[in-house]
């Protein structure tokens, strides 16, 4: 008798219904298996060869102000206009971003704190940078940071996620499960680091730290901000004063914008109490991290030579922190 409903459907003679029901069954099983939690260390993915990842980062054309000792300083105003003035004093964002480029911004979004508590970069500063990049016709602007507190609270409470989405940038969530690529580093102690994948495949890298005190390094500014781009932050804290310059040698930002519109002078880098916040209303912008950090030290009345990581950076040839050698451009 003819099998009208094709009850004996199999792989070679399937019915549409059987195919769909098989798909649903496989998908359900896979999703149950795939959502089981893993033990730590069981999910190592094989990374691509790290030299290829670095090739893109190292082959960008050097902007005209790169490596120089010029630091722009904008004083007194709201964070948005301070940022604009500082970058304009360096010749404008067109010096750094060409049309059609993919720009990655690294503000400090590490802590579950609101903008007044001075633990993260001010959202208005980030907004100013995004708008300036948009004016230079950047193809895609990404905002990311590997936070210390959970991403969904830090991105929201700091106000940076909303400001970035409104300004038209793409917000990358860096959380367990994000892609990091291993990069070899010929460092004194640091031999490799896992860097956020999107950063390595971008054309420009702009770092937007905030100036705060820090118990381990003394102060956290441009160099310390690079920790937001790597995966295994805790282990980097051991020998941090050697690791930071080594890390900076492979992921060098094209532009650093140091947000000192409000700073943390005590109980940093987490903060939490408004009594620890001061408001110098300054934004620094520069391409050389040593110079920008040296100027940042003046806000806390600290001699740059007392910061070990700066000393190591100078010894590696990454810059000089003598204040008389730095050219300060007032904005």
């Amino acid at each position: 008798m003819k099998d009208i409903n094709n009850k004996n459907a199999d792989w070679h003679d399937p019915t549409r219904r059987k195919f769909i029901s098989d798909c649903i069954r496989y998908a359900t099983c896979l999703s149950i298996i795939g959502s089981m939690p893993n033990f730590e260390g069981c999910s190592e993915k094989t990374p691509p060869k790290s030299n290829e990842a670095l090739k893109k980062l190292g082959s960008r054309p050097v902007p005209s102000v790169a490596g120089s000792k010029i630091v722009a300083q904008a004083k007194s105003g709201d964070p948005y206009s301070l940022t604009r003035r500082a970058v304009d004093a360096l010749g404008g964002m067109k010096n750094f971003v060409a049309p059609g480029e993919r720009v990655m911004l690294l503000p400090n979004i590490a802590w579950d704190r609101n903008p007044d508590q001075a633990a993260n970069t001010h959202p208005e500063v980030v907004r100013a940078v995004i708008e300036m990049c948009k004016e230079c016709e950047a193809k895609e602007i990404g905002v990311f940071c590997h936070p210390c507190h959970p991403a969904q609270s830090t991105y929201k409470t700091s106000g940076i996620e909303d400001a970035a989405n409104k300004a038209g940038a793409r917000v990358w969530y860096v959380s367990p499960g994000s892609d990091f690529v291993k990069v070899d580093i010929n460092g004194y102690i640091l031999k490799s680091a896992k860097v956020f994948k999107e950063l390595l495949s971008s054309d420009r890298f702009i770092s937007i730290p905030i100036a705060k005190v820090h118990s381990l390094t003394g102060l956290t500014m441009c160099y310390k901000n690079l920790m937001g781009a790597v995966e295994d932050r805790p282990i980097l804290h051991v020998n941090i004063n050697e690791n930071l310059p080594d890390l900076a040698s492979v992921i060098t930002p094209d532009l650093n914008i140091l947000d000192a519109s409000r700073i943390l002078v005590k109980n940093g880098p987490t903060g939490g109490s408004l009594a620890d916040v001061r408001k110098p209303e300054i934004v620094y912008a520069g391409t050389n991290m040593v110079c920008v950090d040296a100027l940042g030290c003046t806000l806390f009345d600290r001699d740059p030579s007392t910061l070990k990581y700066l000393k190591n950076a100078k010894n590696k040839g990454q810059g000089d922190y003598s204040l008389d050698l730095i050219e300060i451009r007032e904005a």
Partner: protein
Amino acid sequence: MYARYPVNRAVPHNAIVKYNPITQVLLNFHSGISLSIVVTVIVLIIFILVGRGFCGWVCPIGAGLDIINKFFGKKIRKPRRDVRKQSLQLKYRLFICGAILLFAGVSIYWLLDPTSMFTRNTALIIDPIIDGTVRAIVKPVSRIPTIGYPIEKAMRSVFNPLPVKSIYLWLFLLILLVMFSFEIFARRFFCKVLCPLGAMLGYFANLSPLKLEASKPSCTKCHRCLTVCKTQAMELHNELKISHKECILCLACREECAFNSLSVLLRKPKIRIDSGDFKSTRRDLVFGIVGAAILLPLFKFGDKRIKRPEHLIRPPGAIPENRFSQVCAKCGSCMKVCYTSGLQPTLLEYGVDNLFTPRMINTLGFCGYECNDCGKVCPTGAIAFMPLEKKRGAIMGIAKIDNQICWPWAEKKPCITCEEMCPIPQKAIEFEERPVTFDDGTTDLIKLPHVVKENCTGCGICENHCPVRPIRAIRVVYEGETRGGAIRETPPRERRVGFTTNEPTYWK
């Protein structure tokens, strides 16, 4: 995008266990008479009016079993297969035993209660699976140009951006599958044989005005309604007899009857018990009391010898430990809303009465400084609701540094991660500075962390981020905890920065 689970919705995710009549009665029993008695009375009135219609129309476990029967019923079970009539009495005995134990202070009733079971399963099985699947799909989709990022943003406005972890997912799934597999023996096996809530509603079913009745003239005694009755509530000898205790008003029989003789009618509630019912009720009472009498000493006297381990940390605002397992409904609501997935169920490591109660596992998550959601959602009040400022004064424990393995203390390796993470504005970790000679001959000052006991709330973020493995060098123990809405009386103190002492270290 929301930062945490939306707990302020009009209908809470655990409404079914929150407005369970047993939860409501116990709420007033444990925390005294207050305004919430109005809600209790309303819930009791609704359940009395509806009777076992709850089982037929509302209960999610019943709905799940019906769905399974609809798709797989014919394949897994021979037609007309049912349990013996005697087996239907088991649920009444389980209910009596469980109810006596509940009021005596042992709350294993909640392991079988369907509302708690449903909330537990959604929190610990369904949500993590959906979360993982959606995350796995959106990750590659978000790479698509132009539309990828809006899709990712839309997902983040619904789902928690952090992965949801449920460490015993496999176990709860196994239990659920075993329970569903009982359908091999009969339709709605759990409802007929095991469900204690159904048993309670069965006892009060006579008070309900809704009653299924057969009209004698049109009934031809064809037996068709008996074959489709999900709970074996019908008997046909000389005439059709419907047991209101068992009937869940699902109306499958009414659909099946070709002569339209079955319908739900409004009748005056009967306060008296029938004589047949009286005998079986008496037997249930005897079995229940004997069962409770046997089990009660096992729980009350056996577990006192197990001392509470130091790493059993309860959620902030949890009521005192000797009452916590009695009040906790093991519903998993708190675990669902914990945004770091730090709250996880305990198994048998702390005794049977602590089965499926929540504990904070600091290696997985921690107690967020900005969050007080677990107290907001707890349906029984086992975790007291505290406003955020007050919750920051609720102490879960104290962090203790193991200076045998902490890197600065034991290995001359500078590390400050615990202090960096501490969310308390005054910081609960302070530094001692000591001169040290490193292996290469250079000397320097090294910062050694100390916990400031007056400031630490035991949130656990330090233990969560401590890089030392396999055991963390800083761990939270339950010393100094404040329970049940109490807060620490002493104010936080200013920490010392860079002091020196002459205590010994363990540098090798």
